[in-house]
């Protein structure tokens, strides 16, 4: 039974299409990879699923229920958690307080009568950053901050976790431990959807992989199937080695940072109209 259903989603920024009729499903209890070249629209897909970006058209459903128009915070209450490619830790708070805020938000008024200190320790232990508990979050290394975002998201007890390039900034042994953590989370019955560039990690950990290119799903299957898929090889190698054409570079910024910084304006369009 699929938990998440992305149905024919299109996202356009001005005249550029970042996500172009993307279709995919994520099954409950799996670790699913979402891979693709830079600018393929992966982060934009995440923004659409979490509600930070309204799709131009298409549907997103969770458990068969349409959530396309649901506000961000309500989706979180329905069990969608995420981490960010560009860090969104609460920099002025300590690592422990980052998790504490998440627990406070999640508990609502019920949390007033409950000490959360044990929960915080537990979360930080789980992702392996307990040593940093009293550091300010803007002073810790990038990899650690990514783990902090994961711990913070876990504090809201999500069913579906969206991880945006979680392993960047981690060294080899940390990445290995992180892979085990992902399997552990899946073992607990959580569903993980992950954008990731570390192919070893993706191939070792994921049950299913979706490949996104130019905003469209071009392949899906098990790691072995994806590895053998000639279309995927072409899409990937075409970008990894060869210098990118100018147009493709522009796409990169629209799809990735564009979708990241796109909504950071105070209005929803940044195009100066004539």
């Amino acid at each position: 039974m699929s938990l998440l259903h992305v149905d024919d989603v299109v996202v356009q920024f001005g005249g550029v299409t970042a996500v172009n009729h993307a279709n995919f499903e994520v099954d409950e209890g799996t670790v699913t990879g979402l891979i693709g070249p830079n600018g393929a629209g992966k982060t934009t897909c995440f923004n659409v699923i979490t509600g930070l970006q309204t799709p131009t058209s298409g549907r997103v459903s969770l458990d068969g229920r349409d959530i396309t128009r649901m506000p961000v915070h309500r989706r979180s209450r329905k069990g969608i958690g995420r981490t960010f490619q560009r860090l969104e830790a609460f920099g002025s708070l300590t690592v422990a307080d980052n998790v504490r805020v998440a627990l406070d938000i999640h508990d609502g008024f019920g949390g007033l009568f409950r000490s959360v200190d044990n929960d915080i320790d537990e979360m930080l232990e789980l992702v392996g950053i307990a040593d940093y508990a009293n550091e300010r979050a803007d002073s810790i290394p990038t990899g650690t901050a990514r783990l902090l975002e994961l711990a913070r998201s876990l504090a809201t007890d999500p069913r579906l976790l969206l991880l945006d390039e979680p392993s960047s900034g981690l060294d080899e042994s940390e990445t290995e431990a992180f892979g085990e953590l992902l399997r552990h989370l899946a073992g607990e019955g959580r569903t993980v959807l992950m954008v990731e560039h570390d192919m070893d990690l993706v191939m070792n950990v994921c049950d299913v992989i979706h490949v996104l290119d130019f905003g469209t799903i071009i392949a899906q299957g098990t790691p072995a199937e994806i590895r053998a898929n000639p279309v995927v090889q072409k899409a990937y190698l075409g970008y990894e080695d060869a210098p990118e054409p100018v147009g493709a570079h522009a796409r990169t910024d629209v799809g990735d940072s564009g979708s990241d910084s796109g909504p950071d304006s105070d209005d929803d369009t940044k195009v100066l109209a004539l």
Partner: protein
Amino acid sequence: MTAFLSYTVIGLFTGAAYAIAASGLVLTYSTTRVFNIAHGAVGMVFAFVYWDLSQRQGLPVWLSLVLVLLVMAPLTGVFIQRVLTPGLGTAPVGVSLVVTVAILVGMIGIATQIWPENSAARSIPQFFQGDLIHLGGVIVTPQQVITIVISAIVAGGLYVLLARTRVGTAMRASVDNAELLSLYGGRANVVAALAWAIGTSLAALAGILLAPIIGLQYYDLTLLVISAYAAAMLGKLTSLPMTYVGAMGLGLAQSYVVGYLQDIPGHDKLGGLPACVPALFLFAILVLLPQAPLRIGQVKGIISAPVPTIKRSLVFGVLLVVGVIVMASGMADSTLTNVGTAIAYSILMLSLVLLTGYGGFVSLASFAFAGVGAVVYCKVDQPNLLGLILAIVITAIVGAIVAIPVLRLTGLYLALATLAFGQLMDQLFFTSQWAFQFDNPLTAHRPSIFGFSFGREGRYVDLMAVMLVLVALVVIAIRRGRLGRMLIAMRDSQAACGTLGLDQRWFRVGLFAGSAGIAGLSGALLAGLRVTISSSTFIYFNSLILLMIAAVWGVTSITGAVIGGAFMMYLPVAQSNYPTYAGLMFVVVAVGAVILGRNPNGLTYWMFRVPGWIQDSLYPVLADRYPGLALKARAFEVSGEEDEALVPVDAADAGHNSGEVTSDVVASR
């Protein structure tokens, strides 16, 4: 019908002038993402410059226009962009608002300094005065025709510039992504400077065209920014055609209101309505704007001022109250009034600490809320605790009502809504018969609480000091608790808070209401202090000064608020003592705010660092030179919750956060 046509002509003229100003605002905002609140003030100053050149110095009109529009205004624009506001586009909205409000205050300071109010009346004659044009019974002045024609030329010129030239293409590209533009060889800096040069020149042009009609005055022309952004908002600050539509619609609406209001019974009570049309127009647009997406990729942690523990704050609070009681017993009444005013302003500053310092939102209407509190307190006429509580609660409700329309929008719009609200209160409510009417002071009775009467000046000031301490304790308690953590989290990343399940819209309304409530208390106490109080105490310009001073002294700490409150009281005193330098004082404060506005902790932050600096830098030197002195370098403790308030730890904390990992910080780990 003739009347209708006449009103239409006037409306088109006003709309054309608004359109010129608004397109300048759109150009500067969309290329650099710095919203220039001072846009109208810049227009005002250049209208004065133009008057000075063409009337006082007697230069030919064409030469004055060339000097102002093609030389001085563009240079000023480049100066503002390059020197005063570089890099603000990526800073939190609050910071760029504070800095541009500072520019606004500075501009008014410059104008009042160079062209003081008391000298002979100044006026700019209309272009080709006297040559009236008769169009089927409607009289049209050349000024009107010229303005409408110029606005069409500006529209055409901007279209050609943006659509047909390389630099125009670069301008549109820099709207999308300045970093990307520079990657592709576009010089984002040149583009931004050019946009500001043109934008400022357009502000000056609008000011010069409007000055003959609305008069050469400091404040009326400054408020042109409200009309301009109301128009620009229809185009979401990015679309020039929609901006023109908005400007024309606004100009016509205003003209019809002026024209037809006198036919409506009871119009004499709505004398301030025409001036409020832009603000009302703006509110309507804000309500209709679609939901803003949450910001991603914002600035991260902000260096925080130390937050004392409740225990420590209590000690300081008691000391402050005792100090005031002792001092108050021996003071003359006039001095007591000043002390009381400083306390009231400090409480008002605390409302900003909560809203701006902790929450990251900017209010440009603090004094309007204080005024609501004062009116409520006077009208309810319950000189006891109930009266004060009602003033707080009702002002808080008003605050919520202001915030609700902009619930779905981001900080910039909230700030603009407060500016519009401040102007509405100024023009419509405070002057109405429900409030102060036209400078008709209200009488407030000083309260008696639990049988204690606070009628005497000294006693009342003691009461105010107690109130200040209570409010400060509440603010500190909020900051240290769950709510405070959530506020900081929301300031650091709204997107993350959203994905963690926080409904920030109502949180924001609550924050705004709380802040307004504190402002209401301040106003009520001020009314009691002055016994009779009039609307002039609460003019909107004071809110801008308050924000300036908050930026200078720091808006993240109670200490900053108290010092800032005293400063706010002292500024007008100093200005009336040295009237020749009154304008200059505004300029000095404004320059301070521009410099310090980027760090919300203000001067207080540096004060907190002094003891640490003395121990770190001075003690070792002294100890070297005079070995006999028993000077110890400071001892470091693990920065736990309870120790947070100790200065050494805070200073270490601060140094550490600003990235200077000094050896003592390493030692403290």
